[in-house]
């Protein structure tokens, strides 16, 4: 019996809508051969997926605690359901929760802070540090020897 062979690894892409999402989609090139799962805050984004499964979570920012809680709970449930091998995000709040819970579940985590954050790392990008196994910025001048690290940008 060799069941392991046919099992593909799973990657979960998680971000809020808009620029975060568009930047994140450009990182798909690194995940050839993976089963792809997506979580974002705009329910219409299922249209943009050609391969893989999409799930929507409530929209919330770091400034709205109540909606944030609803978003966090749904992300946790989806993580338990999907059981990805890797979670990757460009931001913002959904990505923070995705990485936080994934780290507790011993899932590998990657954070690529958005290009929009030129002068300083995003708030979620700063807070996610302890939960990001690979912690990256897309601006060289924001990188430090202890992270976030810079290896290029999606543009």
């Amino acid at each position, binding site marked *: 019996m060799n069941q392991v062979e046919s099992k593909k*690894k799973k*990657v979960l892409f998680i971000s809020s*809508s*808009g*620029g*975060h*999402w*568009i*930047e994140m989609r*450009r*990182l798909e*090139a*690194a*995940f050839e051969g993976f089963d792809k799962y997506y979580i974002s805050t*705009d329910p*219409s*984004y299922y*249209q*943009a997926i050609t391969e893989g499964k999409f799930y929507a979570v409530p929209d919330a920012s770091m*400034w709205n605690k109540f909606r944030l809680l609803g978003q966090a709970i749904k992300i946790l449930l989806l993580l338990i359901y999907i059981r990805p*091998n*890797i979670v*990757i995000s460009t931001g913002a709040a959904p990505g923070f929760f995705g990485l936080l819970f994934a780290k507790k579940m011993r899932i*590998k985590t*990657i954070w*690529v802070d*958005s*290009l*929009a*954050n*030129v*002068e300083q790392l995003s708030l979620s990008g700063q807070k996610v540090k302890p939960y990001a*196994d*690979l912690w*990256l910025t*897309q*601006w060289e001048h924001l990188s430090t020897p202890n992270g976030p690290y810079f*290896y*290029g*940008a*999606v*543009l």
Partner: protein
Amino acid sequence: MIFVSVGSQLPFDRLIIAIDEWAATHQDETVFAQIGNSNFTPKHIEFCQTIDPINYDKRIKSADIIIAHAGTGTIITGLELGIPLLIMPRLAEKGEHRNNHQLATVKHFSTFTTITIVGNEQILVTTLDQMLKNKSASPEKITTTVSNKLITTIKDFIVDT
């Protein structure tokens, strides 16, 4: 066609009002605007509050000029398609964003030749007139790619997952 987008998060009425007023005196130009969750109702242009990915794709691909706030989504898409971008950043002091990070964003994107950045709505419309006049001289298409090093770094990191 002129495609206008203010992004998915916040309205940006200063931009939309300026374009709507401009369109009133330029009725030979077709304008489509995604205006966000705004109380302002444009009178001279076609518009929607939010746009799904299929319609966004369709509209933006047929645009001659893209006008937008300094959001990375529209900027990346415009660069990929080689369509000239006219960008006006949001300002925190006008209540258009929580902070002035869009000012910093545009500084770093200004090196691309297809991106024109304007500081206010008066310059926005005069620049738009200028760009339409020069439309025939189509700009060189910039193909933007993801950094190889970034993709390789991620691949190496996940290889033994």
